[in-house]
């Protein structure tokens, strides 16, 4: 059962990692769908 709960915990970690990782790598929808003249960070 320990392995099962460990796998669930790792799933949660992977989810959080994927969210921040993909955003840090510039995969956010906003970065992909606006032109340079739209200032997202203002």
């Amino acid at each position, binding site marked *: 059962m320990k392995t099962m709960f460990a796998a669930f915990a790792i799933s949660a970690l992977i*989810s959080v990692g994927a*969210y921040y990782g993909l955003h840090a790598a510039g995969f956010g929808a906003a970065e992909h769908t606006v*032109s340079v003249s739209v200032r997202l960070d203002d």
Partner: protein
Amino acid sequence: MTRAFFAIVVTCFLSVLGSVSLAQETSTTDRSATGGAQTLEDIMARQQGLPIDDSFRSDAIGNPEQAAPLTDQLGSLGGLSEPEVWRAMRYNKADISGQARGPAANVLIQDSGMWWLLFRDGPLATYGSYLLGGTIALLALFFLIRGRVRIDGEKTGRTITRFKAFERFGHWLMAGSFVVLGLTGLITLFGRKIMIPYFGHDSFATMAIASKWIHNNISWAFMIGLVMVFFMWVLENIPNRLDLKWIAVGGGLFKKGVHPPAKKFNAGQKVIFWSVIVLGTSISVSGLSLLFPFELPMFAKTFVLLNSTGLPEMLGFGTLPTQLTPHAEMQFAQLWHAIISFVLMAIILAHIYIGSIGMEGAFDAMGSGEVEEQWAREHHSLWVDEVKEKQSASAQTTPAE
């Protein structure tokens, strides 16, 4: 199984074809009485929900070169009338430039969105819920009739290692994330209908946002688990003759005391394995297409391949559309993702049943990894023999201390 799967593929892909072929049939409509505009037949057909050939409208987008100059009587700015401009936008024929980037940015109006919405809220939701509800009902009926599949022989009190920790980890990584993906997917599809009446709009909005976040991000755990499971167990899941014997007696599930021989995985488990691998991969690929909108279009290419097989023609659906707008690609991806997910969820419901309350001793295989030897002998007799042989061989080669 293969037939049912193929039927779903064809139904999904070809429902659009129906409209294409019907549109072709109506292309000969006589419009001389209306000067080329829509006729009473067109209106009646549309009211009945039938597709019409609307080229009289989609092609009427004006021609500035032939239009009267702005300085002349009846001259218009740009040489186009407003209806012509809007028609051009509607049919994706206008020359659009904007601040937004991406392949979908210049498509302002896309008619097939309505077809997608109606299909999603209609047949997809209806038949999807029938499938899941029907599966649960069948399993409940099976449980009432057959009861729990017990260990027939006397328990030995000895255990045998069925799955190592690494194997169980891969299984639970995929299984846990799949259950979460299934639940959050169902919230996305049915939430508006089922949850809003109970929780209200505001709280459902929060739930829907959380559900989407979880669904999008836990998908990576599922895909990693899927790859792990494939490489861990693929060799032991290659079908062989024993599977036919197992299938012939229904795996012994329907009759007490029947235990067909099986190696590490029996035919039923192989069906589950290959369903998970094939359908899980399809769900993952269509899911990636949805995760990265407009970046991974795949349906136009798939339709080209299907057309090349001649199957759509053979089945009387004509040729599949091979030029799709970016939005249509996403709509097909979403429908495909949901249809295959429903099928896999139904299969996994059966797997969860037999791996938990349906069979005594089965959960231990993935719980602790240690199963009762008698259970193993009844369900995987050949595998037990292999394990025992290995154990005795290693005992002979290990010197006594």
